[in-house]
């Protein structure tokens, strides 16, 4: 076996994917979000840099690259400095198992792990480590509260998310993401139809996992002044944003893979279908952000523990009954 070539291939793929995330998910994701926000609120959104404000976030990035890094005296410097790296890397790791499409018989996926779905859920929850580390190390009361809220929220919604993933795995009979896409045939065979309750649970839990409105208590601008990243300046702040957007796009890509039939579709090439479906989910998430008010912490925890988790477990039972009888 030629290990050296494989390692080079892996490095190339990782660099490519990271660049893709930084440009498509973070830069143009933020721009898309601001444009959609403007559209929903009858504003114009960014408009001055480049045609229709297309280079706005590019200019922002160049600006952030020239900004000073400030580490507060009170902070724990080692943990404070590594936290953004953890969040950004966790955002990348989700994408290892996401199949983008096919070219002939070749499936465009970094690695089709046999535990794909479990791997995804493990990597998605790595973010909480970075957030908790950053919030704690800042030694700022707002950050601390934001980090604690974020941790309790993310662990609470991980369980409903897992129940949705398990229901899908039961139906498909595999944890491999490519296998799950293959198990969905045609529009009626896609799991959004056969596993509709799981889809609803997945979408709610995914929104909460990526800390987006209506579940954005950890950042709550109006009370916690950005929560866990209050103390972060310049590029470190941008890394948190990158991780967050990479995570959001990963959740959308996973919803596409698990429920919407992944790359499958008529006429257009598979990769295009995958992107169309993924962007529809991303649009849905952004639409929610500009439409709903924020939850209160007790409402948020009740929704997860008292409604979504029992519902998810019951749905596993129903799916099991249906498949064995």
């Amino acid at each position, binding site marked *: 076996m030629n290990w050296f070539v*494989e390692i080079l291939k892996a490095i190339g793929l990782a660099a490519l994917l990271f660049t893709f995330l930084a440009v498509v998910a973070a830069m143009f994701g933020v721009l898309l979000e601001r444009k959609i926000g403007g559209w929903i609120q009858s504003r114009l959104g960014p408009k001055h840099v480049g045609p229709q404000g297309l280079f706005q976030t590019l200019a922002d990035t160049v600006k952030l690259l*020239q900004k000073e890094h400030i*580490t507060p005296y009170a902070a724990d410097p080692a943990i404070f400095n590594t936290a953004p790296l953890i969040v950004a890397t966790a955002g990348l790791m989700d994408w290892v198992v996401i199949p983008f499409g096919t070219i002939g018989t070749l499936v465009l996926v970094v*690695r089709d792990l046999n535990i794909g779905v479990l791997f995804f859920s493990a990597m998605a929850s790595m973010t909480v480590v970075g957030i908790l580390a950053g919030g704690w190390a800042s030694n700022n009361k707002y950050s601390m509260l934001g980090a604690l809220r974020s941790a309790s929220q993310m662990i609470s919604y991980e*369980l409903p998310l897992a129940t949705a993933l398990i229901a899908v795995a039961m139906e498909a009979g595999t944890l491999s993401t490519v296998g799950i896409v293959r198990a969905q045939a045609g529009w009626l065979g896609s799991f959004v139809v056969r596993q509709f309750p799981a889809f609803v649970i997945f979408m709610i839990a995914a929104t909460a996992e990526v800390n987006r409105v209506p579940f954005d208590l950890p950042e709550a601008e109006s009370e916690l002044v950005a929560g866990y990243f209050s103390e972060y300046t310049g*590029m470190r702040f941008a890394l948190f944003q*990158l991780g967050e957007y990479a995570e959001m796009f990963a959740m959308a890509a996973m919803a596409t893979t698990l429920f919407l039939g992944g790359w499958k579709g008529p006429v257009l090439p598979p990769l295009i279908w995958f992107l169309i479906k993924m962007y529809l989910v991303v649009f849905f998430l952004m639409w929610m952000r500009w439409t709903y008010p924020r939850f209160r*912490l*007790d409402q948020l925890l009740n929704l997860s523990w008292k409604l979504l988790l*029992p519902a998810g477990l019951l749905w596993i039972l129903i799916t099991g009954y249906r498949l064995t009888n």
Partner: protein
Amino acid sequence: MLLLDWLYVGVFVVVGLAMAALPLAIVWALAPRAALPQKRMTYESGVVPFGQAWAQFNVRYYLFSLVFVIFDVEVIYLYSWAIVFKQIGRFAFFEMVIFLVILLLGLAYAWRKGALEWA
């Protein structure tokens, strides 16, 4: 093949950290460094910070994480069951019904005991 999969995962971790550190290196080279003492004070809405943030906080957070650990471990068993239960058939289903009922009883217990209340 399996080993190769995890080689990729390992390389992704390393490259991810390196790529994330790259912009920080650019900042290190480009950005000014003029850290006035006031700049490095902890932000607290403009007033001089009062005490530390590393103080006591609500014990509720701990209770939720405890319940989470219990359920998360149980969910791991469900994953391995989910992919093989079709081959084993009805027996596996009823086994898991018993397991899930115990799980739901646990949830009901935590609920009844008020571990899921935030107040």
